C-alpha cells in the first residue's frame, strides 16, 4: 500500500481531477439526452391524451418510464458506474436507494392503513375543522 501510493504519486498529481469520475463524451451526453426526451415525452403524451383507457395501466407505465429515465440520467449524465471512486459512490447510492425504498414504501403502507381506519368525514365537516 505504502509503496504503491509513493510510486504512483506523480501520476496521481497530474490526473487529480480525472480520477474522481469519468466525464463522458459528446456521444454519451447525446444518447442520454435523446433517451430522456423520449422517456419524458411518452408519459406526458399518455396522460394528456388519455391514450390508455385504463388509469392503473397508465400510472404503471408512467412510473416505469420515470424509473428508467432516472437510470438513464445516472449513467449518461452523472456517469455512475461501479468503478467510480473504487466503488464507494455506488455503495453510497445503493445504501441511499435502500433507505429511500424502506422509508417511502413504509410511509405509504402505514399511512394508507391509518387513513383507511379513520372515520369518514364529509366536506362540510372538513371545512369546519380548526
Amino acid at each position: 500500500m505504502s509503496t504503491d501510493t509513493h510510486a504512483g504519486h506523480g501520476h496521481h498529481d497530474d490526473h487529480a481531477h480525472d480520477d474522481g469520475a469519468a466525464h463522458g463524451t459528446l456521444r454519451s451526453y447525446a444518447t442520454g439526452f435523446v433517451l430522456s426526451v423520449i422517456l419524458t415525452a411518452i408519459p406526458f403524451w399518455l396522460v394528456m391524451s388519455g391514450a390508455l383507457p385504463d388509469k392503473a395501466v397508465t400510472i404503471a407505465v408512467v412510473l416505469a418510464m420515470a424509473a428508467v429515465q432516472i437510470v438513464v440520467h445516472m449513467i449518461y449524465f452523472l456517469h455512475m458506474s461501479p468503478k467510480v471512486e473504487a466503488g464507494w459512490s455506488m455503495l453510497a447510492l445503493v445504501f441511499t436507494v435502500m433507505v429511500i425504498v424502506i422509508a417511502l414504501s413504509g410511509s405509504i403502507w402505514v399511512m394508507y392503513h391509518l387513513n383507511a381506519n379513520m372515520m369518514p368525514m364529509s366536506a362540510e365537516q372538513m371545512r369546519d375543522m380548526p
Partner: protein
Amino acid sequence: MSTKVVNAQAGTGEAPVFYLRDEHEHPEGASTMLGFWMYLMSDCLIFAMLFATYAVLSGNYAAGPTPKDIFELPLVAVNTTMLLLSSITYGFAILAMQKGSAKQTQIWMVVTAIFGLCFVGIELSEFAHLIADGATPQRSAFLSSFFTLVATHGLHVSFGLLWMVVLFFQVRKHGLIPANRRRLICLSMFWHFLDVIWIGVFTVVYLMGVLR
C-alpha cells in the same frame, strides 16, 4: 516525505515498508468528488422524505382544489424541457472544459443559466397563479406538501444558479485551473442530480396528480 520520494525514484534496496509510517500526502481535492456525492445522497434523503410526505397527504384536499383543478400539464412540460435542455448544455460546458477551452465553457454556462432561470421563472409564475387563485400552502395538506416539495426543488435550482454565476466569474478570472475544474464537475453533479429529482416531481406530483 521528500526522502521517501527520493528512495522510490532511486529504487535502492531499502527494505519495503508495509504500513503507513506517517500521514501520507493527499492530493488537494482528491476526495472532493466522493464527499460531494455523499452530500447529494443526503440531499436525496431530504427529497425522499418530502416525497413520502406528499404521497401520504396528496389526497387530503380539505374540500379545496384538487390536482386536476390547478395543474397545467403543458406548462409543466415546458418547464421539464427547460431543465432537460439545461442539463445537456451543462454537459457541453463540461465537454468544453475537457477540451481546455475556458471561453466555450463560459458560453455554455451562460446558456445553462438562461434555461435554469426560465425554469425558476416559470415555476414562480405558476406559484403566483396558484396563490392568486386561493390555492395557497395553508389551504390544505395536499397544497402544503405540494408547495414544500416543489419549492424545495426550486430553491435548490436557484442556489445552483447562484453557484453557476459565481463559478462563471471564477473561470473568467482564473481560467480552468484544477480547483475550478473540480468545482465545475461538482456543479455538474449537482445540476444533473436536480434533474433526476425533477423526474420524480413531474411524475409523482403532476402526472399522477392529474391521473388520480
